[in-house]
């Protein structure tokens, strides 16, 4: 704003020097001046964010973990109509661009967010708008799937935030040091997360014989989805061998989700929550970030048992598309006020499920 004020002062000075005849020329200078100021401001903000990210990464390399610190900005975010802002962003990025302009815009995007343009399936001028470019498919063979039958592959391109085995009562995943969230809240209260009650544990901490795991060994394809159990997550703990992995996708990453194994999806849950940013800073400052955001959970079974994938949207990349259910839409205006933990569910082929092979595409994120 000080830059614009200086511009205005300079324009007025020039106008008075020219005896008032420079007014219209001054106005015409103001618009490009404001544009330059906006671009400069965005550049400074981007540089500052990169500097902050670098500092956090350096601290992590030194073994210093960032801690949960709620702040004023995070509180203000809650007051903003984030879903509407996200949809506006989606609308803006859907505006068709002139063909000559497309390569410049997409190259600038790729430079800013470290995308690999040589992997794009189509020439740059074929993507009519930024939204189409963002959700671009890759050339055949760009993502070879590990052929080892005893391996579980990454469903996305991204950065590993956390992973490990789920143990202990409550089944919590650490969002950041000092704050954890419950897996049941993330996946939904009606999730088939394999748990055992505390009373079913023997002295060694192993599950008693009649656990869901043992039942699964006898018949893991046969699962009843008709009567979800309501469990007390505090007095129960996960069966042995329940793992999790949290992967963050940067704006420049390939935003399609693929099957990590051969599996059957039985149910899709859609939680139409808010749309906060989900970057490093947000994980440190926004409580329950992942379980308050809009998300889609796909749940089913693979040869070793339970499998669930939660795709969590963000303000800039808010909509989630499902090639396995093309009519599904997310990030729509909410018709009624639902509790963030209330999900809209759909069963795929009740009792049979939808079979997917390792590497098959199951979902994609899109802008706005």
């Amino acid at each position, binding site marked *: 704003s000080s830059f614009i004020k200086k511009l205005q002062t300079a324009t007025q000075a020039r106008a008075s020097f020219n005896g008032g005849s420079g007014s219209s020329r001054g106005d015409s200078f103001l618009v490009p001046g404001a544009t330059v100021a906006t671009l400069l401001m965005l550049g400074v903000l981007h540089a500052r964010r990169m500097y902050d990210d670098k500092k956090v990464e350096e601290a992590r390399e030194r073994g210093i973990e960032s801690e949960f610190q709620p702040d004023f900005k995070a509180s203000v975010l809650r007051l903003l109509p984030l879903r509407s802002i996200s949809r506006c962003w989606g609308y803006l990025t859907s505006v068709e661009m002139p063909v000559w302009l497309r390569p410049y815009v997409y190259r600038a995007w790729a430079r800013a967010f470290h995308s690999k343009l040589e992997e794009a399936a189509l020439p740059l001028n074929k993507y009519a708008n930024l939204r189409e470019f963002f959700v671009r498919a890759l050339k055949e063979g760009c993502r070879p799937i590990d052929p080892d039958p005893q391996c579980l592959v990454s469903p996305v391109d*991204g*950065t590993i935030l956390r992973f490990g085995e789920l143990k202990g009562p409550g089944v919590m995943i650490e969002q950041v040091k000092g704050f954890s969230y419950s897996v049941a809240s993330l996946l939904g209260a009606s999730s088939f997360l394999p748990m055992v009650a505390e009373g079913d544990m023997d002295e060694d901490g192993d599950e008693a014989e009649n656990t869901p795991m043992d039942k699964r060994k006898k018949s893991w394809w046969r699962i009843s989805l008709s009567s979800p159990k309501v469990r007390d997550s505090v007095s129960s703990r996960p069966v042995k061998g329940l793992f999790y992995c*949290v*992967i963050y*996708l940067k704006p420049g990453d390939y935003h399609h989700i693929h099957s990590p194994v051969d599996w059957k999806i039985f149910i899709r849950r859609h939680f139409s929550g808010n749309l906060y940013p989900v970057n490093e800073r947000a994980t440190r400052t926004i409580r329950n970030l992942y379980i308050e955001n809009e998300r889609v959970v796909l749940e089913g079974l693979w040869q070793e048992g339970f499998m669930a994938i939660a795709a969590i949207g963000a303000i800039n990349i808010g909509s989630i598309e499902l090639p396995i259910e093309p009519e599904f839409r997310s990030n729509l205006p909410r018709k009624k006020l639902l509790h963030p933990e209330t999900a809209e569910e759909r069963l795929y082929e009740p009792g049979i499920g939808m079979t997917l092979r390792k590497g098959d595409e199951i979902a994609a994120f899109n802008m706005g």
Partner: protein
Amino acid sequence: STVVMVFQAPVIIGDSSSEFKFSIKRGDKIRVGEALGRWREQ
């Protein structure tokens, strides 16, 4: 955007002798199709 996976995988229980191990570290960049973890007979 973020993706969270929750899954069961082999661990040593009773007569089972295979165990799942993650093959990644925190902060690693990973791409679709690359191994997150493997299980092997012990």
